[in-house]
């Protein structure tokens, strides 16, 4: 698959399919997702609720709900497929190679254990440090994430900390075992705007210090614009567009992305009215035959109903799956499937 001698990418997700077994049938939450994450880079996954962005993240960590399972595809970590890992191997991968922080720091920490206990636990699992060494390391992590008075905080329970501080604790815990990937699942959604900026800055700072890759999952385009080297836009379990922040924000090539951008306020054009995307997110139980966004798309054509659009290269770094690009001949080439 890759040239000899070349180091495999840090993380490669190939044709990932994840579905949930429910009483109403099989819900296809992720439907053929591909992306590559290089060391030290930031990938942003953006999409609305139900687009499959969080499920993609949870699939990588294999922390799906009991009824969820990866049905197809590969997840290669440094060239090794982790989807066939045993639970034991997976426990080494989780936390040690790849860590995750969640949307709601209020409920993501165990209320009955101290902050210190929970960080130390993460350290002790993945190293043979003694309890006191783990304590010292936990203190250092708390200082690293910018918590003042760490000696006092380490003995406190989650309910004694503010939301922003809890998210810092979550980050400290996630980074305690020096993972090479940090997945941030809506890391700032539950926080105040001022705290949001602090947390994002902290993540960027730590990324530089520790040279880790970040996957940031969010519905907040502002967060993505600030953080990501590459952006993946998801809709209905598929990737509809990917590219650099500039590609996505200045030259969107998918009707869904265009709609998303029209629906957020811009500093340079405050007078323009915001236009919401009409209709509701699609029902994953009943996926359309063609483009998933078709029913809500103003530009929908007949072919959109019948066929899934292929991913076309619009520009070097910029790919999109929209029939409009075919109609307008707005593409460079059809990417080689065997690439």
């Amino acid at each position: 698959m890759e040239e000899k001698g070349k180091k495999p990418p840090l993380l490669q997700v190939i044709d990932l399919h994840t579905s949930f077994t429910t009483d109403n049938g099989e819900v296809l939450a992720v439907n053929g997702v591909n992306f590559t994450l290089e060391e030290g880079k930031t990938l942003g996954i953006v999409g609305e609720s139900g687009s499959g962005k969080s499920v993609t993240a949870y699939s990588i960590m294999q922390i799906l709900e009991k009824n969820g399972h990866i049905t197809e595809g590969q997840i290669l970590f440094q060239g090794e497929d982790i989807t066939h890992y045993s639970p034991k191997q997976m426990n080494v991968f989780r936390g040690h190679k790849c860590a995750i922080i969640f949307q709601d720091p209020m409920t993501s920490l165990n209320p009955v254990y101290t902050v210190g206990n929970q960080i130390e636990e993460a350290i002790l699992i993945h190293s043979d440090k003694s309890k006191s060494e783990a304590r010292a390391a936990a203190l250092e992590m708390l200082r690293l994430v910018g918590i003042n008075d760490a000696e006092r905080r380490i003995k406190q329970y989650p309910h004694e900390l503010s939301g922003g501080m809890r998210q810092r604790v979550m980050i400290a815990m996630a980074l305690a075992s020096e993972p090479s990937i940090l997945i941030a699942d809506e890391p700032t959604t539950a926080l105040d705007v001022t705290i949001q900026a602090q947390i994002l800055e902290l993540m960027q700072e730590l990324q530089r210090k520790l040279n880790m890759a970040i996957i940031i999952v969010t519905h907040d385009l502002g967060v993505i614009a600030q953080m990501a080297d590459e952006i993946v836009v998801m809709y209905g379990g598929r990737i509809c567009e990917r590219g650099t922040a500039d590609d996505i924000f200045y030259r969107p090539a998918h009707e869904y992305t265009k709609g998303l951008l029209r629906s957020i306020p811009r500093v340079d054009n405050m007078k323009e009215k915001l236009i919401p995307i009409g209709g509701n997110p699609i029902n994953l139980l009943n996926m359309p035959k063609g483009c998933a966004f078709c029913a809500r798309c103003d530009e929908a054509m007949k072919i959109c109903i019948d066929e899934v659009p292929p991913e076309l290269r619009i520009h070097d770094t910029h790919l999109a799956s929209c029939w409009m690009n075919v109609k307008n001949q707005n593409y460079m080439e059809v990417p080689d499937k065997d690439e």
Partner: protein
Amino acid sequence: MTKYLIKRILLAVLSVFVICLITFFAMNAVPGGPFNSEKALSEATKAALEKRYNLDKPVIQQFFLYLGNILHGDFGVSLKTGRDISGTILECFKVSATIGGLAALFAVIIGVVLGAIAALFRNRWPDRLIVFLTTLFTAMPSFVFATFLLMIFCIQLKLLPVWDASSKSLVLPVVALAAYPTAYITRLTKSSMLDALSQDYIRTARSKGVPTIKVIFKHALRNALIPVITYIGPMLAYILTGSLVVENIFTIGGLGQQFVKSITNRDYPMIMATTIFLAVIMVVMNLLSDIMYKVVDPRIKLD
């Protein structure tokens, strides 16, 4: 914490006083008296007896006389047997508490383990079996279950004695007494365990690479035990003080039996003493469970 304890103890004294008051007047409001059933008593003897036990005085005065006595630690003597009441109650309590304590221990251990298993194997056969059994034991009255136990283990299989002084004869009463609380704790643990397992912090623990066993026992179980603990306090109070039904079926001279006997005998001082004793146990157990609550859940503030 100290302030809280003082407040709680003062409140406890108040509760016990109110219980005393209500019991004393309710007891006296019921027609009849301790010496009514004895046909042979002459009017003169009866009057003499009533005078001897202050029963000829107004009820209010009787109440305060009684209060004065118990404040001196004097619970009086049984009107029926003439024996010292504190001694009788302690003796009976020892019997009830032994059986009750064992039953409570059984109920908590088995209940929590079965509840956790049911939650982990939700909708699979171990869960279904446990749900069936808990429904059965919650629904079956203890006299039916106790009788079944006697029939099967003592009469049919002859594994255990129907009654003797050995510790073997404790087995069946303990099982009979534990059946309901075990079933209840199992159900409680199962539902709170399911709730705990679906929480975000469980996902966090898994994402740290914590092995499943530790996720369940460290992260889920401790949270799941919080509602169980609130039940254990009152359950202990109830179970330690003896069950009338189980004690009667297995002919155990415990507190439950004593209590009912004292009521049918109109043995006023005995009724009062037993009531106060039960009230104190109940209040103490509730206080203990509140303190336990705080130990398990740091979010609880006692004040």
